[in-house]
């Protein structure tokens, strides 16, 4: 799918919004970067291809005062629904340009395949193959090999909310029960194995906060309690318990809110599976309250509501 239809839509949308957020090419053909369009001449810069990985919906709360058009993939659209549930955006001031998506690439995976050579060109063939040119030559990859993990279980290739659709809707072919297969697999490990796993992972965290900054649902940003003294939850000491605590803050604050966009994991310079705990929490929210974040605007995030009789919570005995 080319970006032509999308450009047409955006030309239209631009007439009654202050700005449209889309993708343009980044520093090479493997990287896309957000572009903020407020003049018709900028529309030509717009691109759409599987390198458009970033979740552009994340910008919406900070632009609450403006009328904004935004280009979203299926996965990104859940962010908008979640914002609606939490009252973080005014839906009437957002125009959603949805793109049915067949999967994106993980830049990291591609770079691994081409041994981190400089990228000269990336071509997406009609049959789904990807040609990556580097000084070392041309490598042919298949999308499935270099997609981020989230794409392999994606249930919402077509945005769950949109005003315009840039192509024909796509039906998901993925099995819903596979979404949390990784969670269930991990649960098969012993307590000790799990503990060792997380301690090893979190010990590598350099507390750069890139994951938090990229997370569309981390509403606190500058007020994040991982960096404040009042309240003073964690010190700046670089030891395991403080790092672990940071990830617990991040995860627990996202309980039943994480839209599984995978941005946190994508941006982590240390390759830490930052999204994994949130997926586990989502898995539990689904089981306990039949709640799935970012799908139905009418839902209420489970941590901000309750039922007097909780059907699925059993009293714990000693």
């Amino acid at each position, binding site marked *: 799918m080319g970006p032509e239809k999308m450009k047409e839509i955006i030309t239209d949308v631009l007439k009654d919004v202050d700005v449209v957020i889309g993708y343009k090419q980044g520093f090479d053909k493997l990287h896309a970067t957000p572009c903020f369009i407020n003049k018709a001449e900028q529309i030509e810069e717009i691109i759409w291809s599987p390198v458009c990985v970033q979740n552009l919906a994340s910008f919406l709360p900070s632009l609450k005062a403006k009328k904004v058009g935004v280009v979203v993939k299926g996965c990104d659209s859940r962010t908008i629904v979640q914002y609606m549930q939490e009252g973080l955006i005014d839906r009437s001031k957002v125009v959603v340009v949805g793109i049915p998506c067949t999967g994106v690439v993980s830049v990291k995976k591609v770079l691994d395949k081409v041994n981190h050579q400089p990228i000269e060109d990336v071509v997406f063939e009609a049959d789904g193959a990807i040609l990556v040119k580097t000084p070392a030559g041309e490598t042919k990859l298949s999308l499935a090999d270099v997609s981020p993990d989230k794409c392999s279980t994606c249930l919402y290739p077509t945005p769950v909310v949109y005003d315009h659709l840039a192509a024909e809707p796509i039906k998901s072919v993925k099995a819903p029960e596979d979404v949390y297969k990784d969670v269930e697999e991990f649960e098969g490990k012993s307590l000790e194995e799990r*503990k060792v796993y997380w301690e090893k992972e979190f010990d590598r965290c350099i507390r750069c906060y890139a994951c938090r900054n990229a997370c569309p649902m981390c509403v606190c940003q500058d007020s994040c309690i991982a960096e404040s003294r009042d309240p003073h939850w964690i010190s700046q000491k670089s030891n395991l*318990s403080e790092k672990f*605590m940071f990830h617990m803050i991040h995860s627990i604050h996202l309980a039943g809110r994480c839209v599984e966009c995978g941005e946190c994991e994508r941006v982590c310079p240390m390759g830490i599976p930052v999204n994994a705990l949130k997926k586990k929490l989502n898995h539990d929210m689904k089981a306990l309250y039949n709640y799935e974040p970012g799908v139905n605007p009418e839902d209420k995030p489970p*941590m901000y509501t309750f039922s*007097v009789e909780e059907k699925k*919570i059993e009293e*714990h005995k000693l």
Partner: protein
Amino acid sequence: MSEIAPKELRIVGFLCNWCSYGGADTAGVSRFRQPTDLRIIRVPCSGRVDPLFIVKALLNGADGVLVSGCHPRDCHYTDGNFYARRRLEMLKQLLPYLGIDEKRFHYTWISASEGQRWQKTVTDFTNQIHKLGPLHSTTEAHSGS
């Protein structure tokens, strides 16, 4: 922690002022014997208990954490324990994923008149933690600190 007798383990309790703290008082007034491991933190409501307090305690030396509030529908603040129940259940299910035995964390509801129930809860929970042993001797081995 020099004060801690070697036979004791580190157990932290968060008790709501109106019901469970009162229940613990009732147990005291009735002279119901209890193990000495527990250290109690008084909070107005179980709804005040941020699950992160529990995580903080468990990551920093606690071997077990107990939270107790008013019985559902009996919250002094109407709904506080309903929120608490969701938050605490969330944590209860998350802990084993992190490799922390969920038995190290217990939450329950005890009213101000249930001194006996409080005694039983403290006794049983303390025994449970002793059965599990200390949480932290193993941690130290992997800790980078």
